[in-house]
């Protein structure tokens, strides 16, 4: 007799990734020859001391269980439950978490399913192996300027800027941009989660030759001889230019602290006020350097762009969690309800029901004349937010209120919680 576990409604091992948000799981018996009665099984972490840890849920509560007992019919009919990573016990390698299914009566192990508690982490805390896997995936995706990274570079330009900046869509658009790249990197190495640069703290291990590079006296980055980013090419030209305007070994960028940022929305936590973060800390983080990253048309030439924006997105996610801003129909969560053309609506791309360029592939004015890169990269974990998402599909990213909207990522310091009972 053996057991089988299916994650995220997908039997493929490619779907065995979880974050803090509980995901649907089916457990069933296979090869039940000779058995006649239902079998009581216990599910638990195979190694509770090391690796990523998960917990089990049978209902929508905030209290998961370290072990759970289920009765599995011998017909092979699956039992449904949910599994989530234990907050702040993420994996550091693919498959370093494992769910063990044990016969509760005989203690026989019926199956062990490896998985990963895949979480976006502070780049300054990555292990060398995590860092190197990320850099390898990034360099492979760019492929010395011949790869698909060029599409990302060609999206974030002067022509595309009105879709992404200066209005309510700034945060959702960049959330999708990050997700698109992360999914592309995961297609190369599924253990990758986008790390973030916590720009309000010193990050000396990030700004090294082994990671995101160190500028020479005139600002061109230098890398260690084993770092694949040394072969970075964009627009046909090798190298990255990033002179620094603060001491990257001892100081943080000249930006608002996390706490000050989370207060931008005011006491009543209004998105319209919170989105001031587009200036400080977002804009100020960009302009803490000279070089490519400090101007819109060239910012994506520097891959640090994505670590910077992962932190901007993390700040939004933390604000959403702290102030419970997941209800897309609430103007506190997102004020631009409806769609472009409605009375009082924002320009196209910045309203809840608008689709987002370039993923919608619309190239008629007022959208930009080209839409590089096609639709959003798909994920084996979830069909959300869709290949051509609307702005509103990027908001409840953990599926707090609507589980199917879960986007399949989490941050190491932003937990998942079901909404407080009112």
């Amino acid at each position: 007799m053996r057991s089988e576990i299916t994650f995220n409604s997908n039997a493929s091992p490619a779907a065995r990734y979880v974050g803090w948000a509980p995901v649907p799981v089916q457990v069933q018996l296979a090869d039940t020859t000779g058995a006649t009665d239902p079998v009581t099984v216990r599910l638990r972490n195979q190694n509770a001391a090391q690796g990523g840890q998960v917990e089990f849920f049978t209902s929508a509560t905030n209290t998961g269980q370290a072990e759970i007992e289920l009765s599995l019919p011998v017909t092979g009919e699956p039992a449904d439950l949910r599994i989530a990573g234990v907050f702040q016990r993420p994996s550091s390698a693919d498959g370093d978490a494992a769910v063990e299914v044990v016969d509760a009566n005989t203690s026989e192990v019926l199956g062990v399913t490896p998985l990963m508690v895949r979480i976006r982490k502070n780049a300054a805390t990555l292990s060398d192996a995590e860092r190197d896997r990320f850099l390898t995936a990034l360099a492979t995706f760019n492929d010395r300027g011949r790869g698909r990274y060029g599409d990302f570079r060609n999206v974030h330009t002067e022509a595309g800027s009105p879709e992404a900046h200066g209005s309510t869509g700034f945060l959702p658009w960049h959330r999708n941009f990050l997700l698109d790249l992360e999914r592309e990197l995961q297609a190369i190495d599924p253990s990758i989660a986008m790390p973030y640069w916590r720009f309000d703290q010193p990050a000396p291990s990030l700004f090294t030759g082994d990671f995101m590079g160190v500028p020479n006296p005139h600002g061109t980055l230098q890398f260690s001889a084993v770092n694949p980013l040394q072969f970075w090419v964009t627009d046909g030209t090798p190298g990255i230019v990033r002179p620094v305007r603060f001491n990257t070994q001892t100081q943080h960028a000249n930006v608002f602290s996390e706490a000050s940022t989370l207060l931008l929305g005011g006491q009543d936590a209004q998105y319209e006020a919170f989105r001031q973060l587009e200036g400080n800390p977002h804009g100020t983080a960009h302009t803490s350097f000279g070089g490519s990253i400090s101007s819109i048309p060239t910012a994506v030439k520097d891959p640090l762009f994505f670590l910077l924006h992962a932190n901007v997105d993390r700040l939004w996610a933390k604000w959403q969690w702290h102030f419970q801003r997941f209800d897309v129909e609430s103007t506190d969560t997102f004020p631009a309800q409806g769609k472009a053309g409605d009375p009082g609506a924002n320009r196209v791309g910045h309203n809840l029901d608008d689709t987002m360029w370039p993923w919608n592939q619309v190239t008629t004015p007022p959208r930009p004349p080209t839409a590089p890169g096609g639709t959003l990269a798909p994920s084996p974990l979830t069909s959300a937010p869709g290949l051509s998402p609307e702005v509103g599909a990027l908001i409840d990213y953990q599926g707090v209120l609507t589980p199917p909207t879960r986007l399949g990522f989490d941050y190491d310091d932003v937990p998942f919680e079901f909404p407080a009972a009112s």
Partner: protein
Amino acid sequence: MDIPEYRRQLSAELEQAAGQPGFRELLARSRRGAEPHAAAASPGPATEDDLTAAIAVLRDGEPDEPLRSAALQVISSAVDEQPDLIDALTGVLLDAARPADLRTAVLDTLQQISFRMVAFPGKRPDYLAALRSVIDDPDAGLRQRAIGILAREKDEYVQRRLIDGLEGRSAALVPAEKAIQYLGYDIHAEYFPLLRRIVENPPSPAARTEAVRLLAADPSSADLLLTLLSNKQENGDVRRVSAIGLQSAAPARFEEQARRIVLDDDEDDQLRAMSITALTHFANPEALSRDDELTGRIEQLRADSASQQVRQATMSYLAKHGT
């Protein structure tokens, strides 16, 4: 982790941060003895009084950095509602009588606002025109910032001025290596002869290295890059930049040369580690799997090399391509 406790900790941090002085309090402190304006003690969005005071702080050349930063923040946060504040900032930027560090802070704020300037399309041409005025400013730091922004905008005027400086037709705006770097944001075929001349007759070693870097965009410079990479007497930085450039311009020729470097006992260790790293990540895996001589050499280097980077590179190579 107890999530309710985690939430309480964050709430306490937010409460503490909310008590920190804002622009109004900093302004009141700096004007000790003077009457703070009416809204000084009340929190909330910037008022007209705040904005008037913030602009006055900048026009007065306020030396108190925290107050100046707070003033810039007040203005920046109000730009969405009052785009004309950009004009006030531009005015301070262009006022050469103001201290250079203040004008630099204003330029940084304008550049930060430029990420949102799509909301104010009418302001953008004036901003770029102001930057063109600043590229001849006596302050080198301010000048370089303005040139850099314009270069990234592919501004033809600044490109022409940079070329004129490199050609010696007019005084250079910035050191040659910076000028070359700025031209790299919009590389044109007509730059290549100039870059080759700089490689032959460089104004500085750094300028030569930057010129080599940009020549990667020129397919007809592949021979030059290979020559530079192959020459063991050449400067190490130039060889490494040539390797990167050749890998971009002519990957097959680079891989052939990288293989030679790995096999050569007399080569530089850093270049060897770099070559192994390039082969690991970008060369054809099937061709590598058939190359017993290279694999044997890499196994030997893993065991014998005195260079930690070479050993590290061999381990990555063998993990991916080893048998």
